[in-house]
């Protein structure tokens, strides 16, 4: 513990977590298809910041790809790109960025711009004719680049996890510690009702908390809310149940309130903050951490909430993430109820 923790911290904060973005998937829609556009595209593809994901034939596909969330940036070259450069000495390209994460969008856009400038400078050396490529940037979903859009969903996930996991586990363990759990188990009170009666108040409390955060973030922080309120609360309820199950599992592993609190905080909060993706972009982390982040329920909820609130998407877009959360809940419930039963006998 004494040696592991500092080592883990150095590795995490020094090496794995960085704000520089590498290998970000981008799309290119090249209507020009001339050597000029090809040269620029190659330059972009070679850059370590980007990974050319797709070459599209139709810019309509860009919207769909953004909705899927795998690509954050798209570049469109107009049809007369080469001619514009040769005759008018300037041409426009369009850059579309997914600004639901404004920091990433800005960074990526800047990378593209600097690659453009680089290209223009190189060209000046070999070809004295001036050339200007003007990128027209459009920030999708969040044109004002409000930082809240990135932060608030992450905070929502964090608070739900904190209240549900921590409070549930501590509450059940407290009964064990005080001895009242034993009395409840001897009484005609069904043991599963004990669990439910612990879970229900925290479920309701979390929903209230969530509503307050939602109201504050929409009206005070000017967060957009473009999706369905019903879907939002349905998905949030799913996350709450996942966290309650997690709290139940933790309560099964220990008989001391302090241990339950420690496990809930250290074991849950810190990985959640780091691996959800709202403070540090997940794309930059080494694959081991990215793999680990799939285990964090908050990560999936973060994607779901951003899709609903910022992109205004419906269930069709987020069914995969919802299924993951649902699967996690079922697994956790099964394991913790089984352990609870074993404890009874």
């Amino acid at each position: 513990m004494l040696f592991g923790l500092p080592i883990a911290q150095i590795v995490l904060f020094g090496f794995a977590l960085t704000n520089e973005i590498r290998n970000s998937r981008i799309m290119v829609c090249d209507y020009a298809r001339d050597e000029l556009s090809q040269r620029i595209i190659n330059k972009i593809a070679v850059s370590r910041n980007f990974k050319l994901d797709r070459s599209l034939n139709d810019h309509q596909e860009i919207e769909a790809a953004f909705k899927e969330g795998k690509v954050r940036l798209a570049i469109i070259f107009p049809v007369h790109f080469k001619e514009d450069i040769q005759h008018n000495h300037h041409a426009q390209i369009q850059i579309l960025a997914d600004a639901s994460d404004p920091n990433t969008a800005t960074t990526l856009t800047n990378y593209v711009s600097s690659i453009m400038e680089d290209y223009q400078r190189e060209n000046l050396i070999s070809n004295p004719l001036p050339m200007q490529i003007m990128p027209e940037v459009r920030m999708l979903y969040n044109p004002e680049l409000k930082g809240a859009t990135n932060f608030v969903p992450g905070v929502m996930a964090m608070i739900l996890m904190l209240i549900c996991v921590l409070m549930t586990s501590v509450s059940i363990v407290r009964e064990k510690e005080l001895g009242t759990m034993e009395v409840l188990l001897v009484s005609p009170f069904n043991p599963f009702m004990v669990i439910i009666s612990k879970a229900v108040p925290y479920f309701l409390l979390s929903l209230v908390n969530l509503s307050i955060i939602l109201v504050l973030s929409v009206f005070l922080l000017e967060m957009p809310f473009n999706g369905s309120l019903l879907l939002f609360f349905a998905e949030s309820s799913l996350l709450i149940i996942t966290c309650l199950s997690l709290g139940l599992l933790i309560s099964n592993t220990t008989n001391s309130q302090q241990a339950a609190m420690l496990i809930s905080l250290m074991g849950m909060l810190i990985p959640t903050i780091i691996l959800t993706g709202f403070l540090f972009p997940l794309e930059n982390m080494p694959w081991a951490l990215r793999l680990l982040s799939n285990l964090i329920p908050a990560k999936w909820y973060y994607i779901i909430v951003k899709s609903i609130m910022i992109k205004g998407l419906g269930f069709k877009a987020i069914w995969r993430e919802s299924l993951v959360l649902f699967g996690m809940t079922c697994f956790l419930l099964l394991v913790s109820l089984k352990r609870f039963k074993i404890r009874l006998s």
Partner: protein
Amino acid sequence: MKDVVISTDKLTKQFGEFVAVDAISFEVYQGEIFGFLGANGAGKTTAMRMLCGLSKPSSGTAMVAGFDVSRHPEQVKKHIGYMSQKFSLYEDLSIQENIRFFGGIYGLKDKEIRQKSKDLIEQLGLGQELGKMVGSLPLGWKQKLAFSVAVIHEPKIVFLDEPTGGVDPITRRQFWDLIYAASDRGITVFVSTHYMDEAEYCNRISMMVDGTIKALDAPAQLKRTYGARSMDEVFFELARNASRKAD
């Protein structure tokens, strides 16, 4: 011929290699105060947990209040009361709230609960204290209250697991007055303790050593059998060759 309310037949509990309770067989009759004695680690608590339906026997059978503990533990739980050595009441709730909660768990209707609360106030002399937090009561009061709540539904048998730990002899005596009152009402009291003077208050006692019952009889008879002047000596005689230490 008195009714048998508890009967066990080679009741055993094993944890892996370790046999905590080794094939004990005994009977308890209705209305009696049955003392379940033994040193720490002798297997008292484990045996009691089986009788309460809290833990499943490894082998052997036990019938409590007419139900088999292995097959119908939920029925057993409906007909017994229980008070453990740690406190059974919620310290953050008031006396009234605790009575209401446990009354509700045992299926008492609102009217019955209100009547019971009144009876309790009288019996324990609580007077104006109903709204007080249980946490603020002195230990002796908590114990007496916990006992009263344990029998609130007038069960056939009440199991007390070392109920009088940590209080002075006078308070202990007052607690036992409550036990006598319950016994007079026909409730069988199954009490485990390691206070040997409390053994004298029981109708019959059993002595557990190393997981088995070494003796079972009325206190007076035991003293005669072992030529002892007090239960302390009887205990010493029986337990000094025990191989198990306290856990």
